[in-house]
């Protein structure tokens, strides 16, 4: 009895965490796979089995490939604004006078406390073509104003900026914590040993020592960025103009909850899931092996 309990005990302890995960994540995931083979509007009592037809239709549709292209744009945009930029900002903050660094830390983190919806509305005002501050500043610089939310080119930039503004601070703080965890003695030792430039320090000491943090932020910058940009897309552009701001996550929503094509929506979700999975596998196989973890 006692021995059996000892064997069961670890699983019993994990159960409270595992149970909601099974119910709310893995069960729906399996369910989605199943729905992706159906033609169904979620309410009809007679879902129709169509096999791979949803996938075939999806891969044949222009809007899917447009979404893939846009998702690629968002991924690159967020790698710049939610990975590279916060890293450079954090590296900069560690090198400025400590009195100023406190100011920068709070200033850069502040937008994080707002919700994405609030950030979206804020940008709605900032980017207003007539009374918006952004166009006003452009005109002061002698540049022509932009119809940020109705221009097919700039609208992607507008929604990405709104999401980046809100998400930047969190990644900045995570990366700053990673940077500050590197003992100062190490960079001083490197300096005494002949390492002069900040770039050299970054490449040989800082990046290798915080590679665990960097990989985490790299993956979440893409995944969280693409998920979060849904809110400004939905609130500011509705995926438009002419689907210029749509992406895979938004497409799933449109298929599922605007057009009630549950099967097609599930197929899109599965494809998106596989793309993100690929990213995580690449992370696990390639980057993790080279990363240095403290313990």
């Amino acid at each position, binding site marked *: 009895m006692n021995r059996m309990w000892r064997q069961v005990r670890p699983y019993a302890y994990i159960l409270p965490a595992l149970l909601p995960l099974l119910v709310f994540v893995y069960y729906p995931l399996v369910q989605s796979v199943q729905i992706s083979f159906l033609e169904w509007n979620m309410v009809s009592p007679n879902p129709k089995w169509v096999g791979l037809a949803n996938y075939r239709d999806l891969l044949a549709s222009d809007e899917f490939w447009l979404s893939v292209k846009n998702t690629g744009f968002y991924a690159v945009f967020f790698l710049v604004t939610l990975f590279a930029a916060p890293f450079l900002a954090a590296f900069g903050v560690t090198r400025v006078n400590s009195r100023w660094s406190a100011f920068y830390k709070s200033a850069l983190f502040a937008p994080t406390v707002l919700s994405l919806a609030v950030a979206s509305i804020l940008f709605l005002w900032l980017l207003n073509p007539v009374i918006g501050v952004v166009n006003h500043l452009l005109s002061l610089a002698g540049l022509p104003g932009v119809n940020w939310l109705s221009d097919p080119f700039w609208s992607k930039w507008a929604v990405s900026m709104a999401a980046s503004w809100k998400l930047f601070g969190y990644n900045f703080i995570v990366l700053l914590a990673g940077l500050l965890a590197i*003992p100062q003695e190490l960079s001083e*030792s490197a300096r*005494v*040993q*002949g390492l*002069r430039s900040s770039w050299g320090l970054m490449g040989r000491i800082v990046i290798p*020592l915080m590679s665990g943090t960097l990989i985490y932020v790299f993956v979440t910058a893409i995944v969280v960025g693409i998920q979060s940009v849904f809110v400004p897309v939905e609130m500011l552009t509705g995926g438009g103009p002419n689907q210029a701001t749509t992406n895979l996550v938004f497409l799933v929503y449109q298929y599922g909850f605007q057009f009630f094509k549950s099967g097609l929506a599930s197929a899109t979700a599965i494809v998106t899931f596989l793309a993100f999975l690929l990213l995580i596998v690449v992370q696990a196989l390639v980057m993790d092996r080279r990363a240095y973890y403290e313990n």
Partner: protein
Amino acid sequence: MQEPCDIRFSAVRKTFGAQTVIPSLDLEVRSGERLVLLGPSGCGKSTIMRLIAGLEQPVSGTIAMGGQIVNGLDASERNVSMVFQNYALYPHMTVFDNMAFSLKLRKVAKAEITRRIQEAAEKLELGSLLQRKPRELSGGQRQRVALGRAIVQQSSYFLLDEPLSNLDAQLRTNARNDLVELHKSYPRTMVYVTHDQVEAMTIGQRIAVLRQGELQQIGSPEDIYMRPANRFVAAFMGNPPMNIVPVTVGDQQVMFADGGELALPESVLSSLKRCGEQHVLLGIRPEALELWEGDRTVVKPFPPSIAIRGEFIRSEYLGAVVIHHIAVGQHRLLVSSAAPVQFKPHSNVTLTASCEHLHFFEAAGAEQRIPLTVQHLKPKNQPEQVLVMSGR
């Protein structure tokens, strides 16, 4: 060594914000010597080392290394090796890569890098550890890697910031010895920072004692111990610490605050009178005092000696030495001896000491040492009988 590798501080001042760490320092490290910077924590010794390394820049004054003024020169250009207190090994690199780091930066040829590392590894018994990461090493091994990393750099200056403080007592004794041996095979100018006087005495060819950023005394370990320049150095060096008692200079004797008197030979008194101070501090090291049972009045005529009567309180047995607590009036003196004694508590005892072991310091100001001429006295025909009265 061909070129001179001395370090010279001239009127160097260093502040951090409003806090002055080093008011104005003049210091010379001779080419090829082992100089120890010694002082309590916060005395500025690590700052001095960081100024030499170029990790800090002085507010004013000049630092010259090998005759060149190096103010403003970055740490990366100073040709300095440094061993940090926590070793600062790069945790993501193997022992080999840690040691090769500075050489790769200087674009030393691969074969030469391997040769130097092999040589250092052999000397430091690191041969089997070269492919390990620092976290797989013991404290002693890490310390040796840090040393090896500094050696392969072949810089002219070797800086060590409390490198033994993270080792246990046993290892520390060996490491002290190894360091001195190592310096003999790599005779570079070495600056060693510590707050441990035993380390300072064993490693330093000269010791610079610091207090609040000011140099108190610089000299050989014997100098520092036998002729401390002021009360601070006297009290800081030595364990158990020197007995220091305020006294007033009289005609034939000095008086303790509680009314006790200590008769002194004429030569000593005249030295004291010459300096013109009424109130001075008397210092005697615990091992300079001899402990006798009962009241002794007659002591050896030469060398001139003193005797102090007191009351035995208790002994602390430490193995190699025994420390005795003796009450003299309201003062408590420490005496150390090799052998334990069997005195009853509160029994009368007499302490004797040769006058050449007496130290006097000014009681005010910088508490400077008052030089005595007692050592040069020739024996007189008349035996000098010295008697002590204490406020017992």
